C-alpha cells in the first residue's frame, strides 16, 4: 500500500505534466525513435532524477514508498505526449524483483534501475498465451542443482536496451495452472538466450526471446520454487493498470486534437465541427474516454484493499472495457481527420497505433471478457 501523501503525489503528477509539455515535443519523439531505439539517455536520466523510477518501491529499497497506483498520473501524462521510453516495461520487471523474496538480486539489481543506470524487462507473453500470464509453456526442467529453460517469449518490449530479463517458466503443473510457476532473472547475454529484435507497429522496439536449454541456478529464482503464480498475476494486473492510464492519456489527447482540428478544417464551406454527425461522434469519443477514466479512478480506489486475484479481476475489467474505447476513439480520430490522419507525418496516426498496440498486448477485450466470465460468473 502506498505511503505517499497527497502532496507528494500531486507534486509528482505536476512535474511529469510540466515535463511532457515543455521538454518532449512530437519532433523529439520522432528523433528519439529514429536514433535511439525510442530512448534518449537524457530523458531517462530525467526520469531517474525526478524520482519517477522510484515511485512504486519501498524506502528500504531506495524508493519513494508509493505503490503502482501512484504511477497512474505519470502514465497518463506519458500518454499525452506518447512517450516511448520503457517506463512501464522497466517498472513491471522491477516490481517483480521488488515483490519477490530474493534479497540478493534485489540489492544487486534494483539500485541501478532506480538510478536509471540499468534496465530490466519481463518476458511473460507467449505465442499462445493471449494475455493469460499463467498460460506458460516455457519449461524449467531440473538439471543438476539448477534448471534448463526451453521455450519462447514474444512481444518483449525494449529487450535490446536491458541488461537482464525476468522470465516466467513452468516448473510443474499443467498449462494455465497458477501453481508450478517460477520466475528467473538472467543477463540477456546468457548463452542460449536468442533475442530477435524488431521495431513494432507503434514505433517502439520489441523482441522475441528464445531460450534454448538455458541453464539457470536456484539463486536466480525470484520466489520459492513453483510459487511465482500470485506474483505474476499481481504484477500483470499492475502492468494493465499502467497501460490503462496511458490509454486514457492518449484518448484525452485524441479528443482534444480532433475537436481542435474539426474547428479549423472546412468542407463545403463550413467547419467540420458544424456537422452534427461529427459532433455526435466527438461526443461519443468523449463518452468512451471518460468511461475508461472513471473506471480507472474507481479501480485505483479499490486497488489497495484487493488481493492478487481481485486485482487481476479489476485489471481485466479495465482492460476489457478500455479495448472497446481504444478502438472507437482511435478509429474515429483518424476518420475525422480524414486522409491526413492516415499519414506518418501527423501525430494522430501514431496515437492511434499506440492505442492499437495497447489493445492487443496483455489480452484483448474478448480475452478479458472470457476471463471475467470464468472468474466471476461461471
Amino acid at each position, binding site marked *: 500500500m502506498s505511503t505517499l501523501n497527497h502532496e507528494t503525489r500531486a507534486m509528482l503528477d505536476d512535474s511529469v505534466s510540466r515535463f511532457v509539455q515543455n521538454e518532449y515535443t512530437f519532433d523529439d519523439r520522432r528523433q528519439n525513435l529514429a536514433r535511439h531505439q525510442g530512448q534518449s539517455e537524457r530523458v531517462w536520466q530525467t526520469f531517474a532524477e525526478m524520482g519517477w523510477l522510484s515511485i512504486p518501491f519501498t524506502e528500504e529499497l531506495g524508493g519513494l514508498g508509493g505503490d503502482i497506483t501512484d504511477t497512474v498520473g505519470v502514465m497518463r501524462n506519458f500518454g499525452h505526449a506518447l512517450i516511448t521510453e520503457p517506463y512501464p516495461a522497466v517498472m513491471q520487471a522491477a516490481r517483480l524483483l521488488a515483490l519477490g523474496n530474493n534479497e540478493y538480486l534485489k540489492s544487486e539489481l534494483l539500485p541501478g534501475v532506480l538510478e536509471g543506470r540499468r534496465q530490466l524487462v519481463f518476458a511473460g507473453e507467449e505465442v499462445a498465451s493471449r494475455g493469460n500470464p499463467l498460460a506458460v509453456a516455457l519449461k524449467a526442467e531440473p538439471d543438476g542443482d539448477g534448471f534448463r529453460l526451453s521455450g519462447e517469449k514474444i512481444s518483449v518490449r525494449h529487450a535490446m536496451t536491458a541488461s537482464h530479463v525476468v522470465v516466467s517458466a513452468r516448473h510443474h503443473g499443467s498449462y494455465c495452472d497458477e501453481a508450478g510457476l517460477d520466475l528467473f532473472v538472467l543477463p540477456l547475454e546468457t548463452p542460449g538466450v536468442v533475442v530477435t529484435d524488431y521495431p513494432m507497429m507503434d514505433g517502439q522496439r520489441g523482441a522475441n526471446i528464445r531460450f534454448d536449454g538455458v541453464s539457470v541456478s536456484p539463486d536466480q529464482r525470484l520466489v520459492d520454487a513453483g510459487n511465482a503464480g500470485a506474483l505474476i498475476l499481481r504484477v500483470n494486473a499492475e502492468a494493465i493498470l499502467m497501460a490503462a492510464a496511458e490509454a486514457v492519456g492518449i484518448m484525452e489527447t485524441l479528443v482534444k486534437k480532433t475537436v481542435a482540428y474539426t474547428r479549423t478544417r472546412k468542407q463545403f464551406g463550413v467547419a467540420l465541427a458544424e456537422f452534427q454527425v461529427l459532433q455526435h461522434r466527438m461526443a461519443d469519443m468523449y463518452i468512451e474516454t471518460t468511461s475508461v477514466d472513471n473506471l480507472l479512478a474507481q479501480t485505483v480506489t479499490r486497488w489497495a484493499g484487493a488481493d492478487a486475484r481481485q486485482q487481476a479481476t479489476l485489471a481485466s475489467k479495465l482492460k476489457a472495457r478500455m479495448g472497446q474505447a481504444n478502438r472507437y476513439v482511435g478509429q474515429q480520430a483518424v476518420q475525422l481527420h480524414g486522409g491526413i490522419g492516415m499519414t506518418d507525418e501527423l501525430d494522430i496516426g501514431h496515437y492511434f497505433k499506440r492505442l492499437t498496440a495497447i489493445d492487443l498486448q496483455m489480452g484483448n477485450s474478448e480475452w478479458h471478457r472470457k476471463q471475467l*466470465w470464468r472468474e466471476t460468473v461461471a
Partner: protein
Amino acid sequence: MSAHQAAELSAFRQQVRDFIEANADDEIREAGRKTTSFFPPFDQVMKWHRILHSQGWSAIRWPEEYGGTGWDVPRQLIFEEECRRAGVPLLLPQSISMVGPAIIHYGTDGQKQKHLPGILSGDDFWAQGYSEPNAGSDLASLRCRAERDGDHYVINGSKTWTTYAHHANRMFLLVRTGGAGKPQQGISFFLIEDLTDPGIEIRPIIGLDGLPEQCDVFFTNVRVPVDCCLGEKNDGWSVAKYLLEHERGGGTSFATTFRHELALILRLARRTGDGFGGTLADDGAFQDRYMRLVLEVDTLEATEEQFAAMEKGSPQSGPMSSMIKIISMETLQRINEMAIDVAGSPSLPLQLAALTVGSGVEPIGDEDALTLMPKYLNNRAASIFGGSNEIQRNIIAKSLLR
C-alpha cells in the same frame, strides 16, 4: 474505512433488511416484481411509500430538517441495495426526487409548509408537466400559457407524457408567463394544488405494452393563485435545470438496479435450452454478450461514483450528467434487448392480467420472463424522454467545442 464504521454500516444494513422483511407485504413485493418501466404499479408503490414514511424513511436524500433521513451516501446506497435485494418497488420519483428537492431549494416558507408534508407522507402524488405535443425534447418552445388576472393566473394549453397524471392530485409544470426575449426566458414553474378543477382534463395514453402510464393533460381557463409560482416568475428554466441535475446526480443508482436485471437474465439463461440440447448460459456468444453488459454496468457505476463526488455546476458536471443519461439509458435498453433474446418466443404472449398485482392469474411460461417484453417495449422511451439522447449528445458536443 475503519472497522468501527464498517460495523455501523453492517448494523444499519441489518436494520434496513429487518424492516423491509417485516413490513413489505406480498402485494408490495409482487408490485416490485411486476414493475415494467421506471414506474411501479401505483397503488402498491404508494402503500409502500406510506409504510416507509411511518418509519421516517420516505425521503432518504432530503436533509433531516425537512423530514428526510439525513443519511450519508453509503447509507443511501445500502438502503437501495437492500430494497433491490428484497424486490420492493422503488418510490416514484416525481414527488420525492423531483418537485420535493425543488421546493426545498426554491420554495417560500409557505410553499414548503403547504407541500412538503404531503410529499413526505405520500398523501399527495405529483405529476410532472414539461413536454407538450409540439415540444418534446425542445422545452424552449413551450406554448402552454398563463395570463395574469388579478391575484390569479389563468392557464390554457396542454401537457403530454405526464406520467401517472390520472393517479395524481397535484402537478408541477412549466408554463409561459412572458413573451419577449429568448424562447427559454419567460417560462415559469407552477405548483398546482388541485387537479380536480373542471378546466383540467386528463386523458391516459395507451403505451406499447397495452397499458396507460403516460397522460395528456389539457388546461382550459384554469385559475391558480399567483403564489403557485416556484422561484422567480419567468425563471422557471433555472428551477427545471436544477431539478434535472438533482435528479440525475442525487437520484437512484441505476447501476444497482441494472445488476438485478442482469442477474435475472443469467438465471433464465441457465435454465433455458439452446435448441441443440444444451443451455444458453454455456454458449460463448451468450457469455460474451452478457459480460459486455456487465462491463457497461460497471462503467456506469464508476461514472455515478465520480459524478456524486463532483461539484455540480462545474465545467465537467454538465457533460458528465448528459453522459450518465446516455450510458444509463442505452445500457438499460441493451439489457432489455438481451433479456427478450434470452427469453425467446415464450416472451410473446401479452399478459395484462398476469401483470396486474393481486390478480392471482398465473403467467404463461416462466414467471421470470413475464415482465421482459413490456420492459423492452416501455424502455424504448428511455432514450426519448427527459431530453432525448440526441439532445444529450448535442449538449456534450457543445461543451467540447466551447
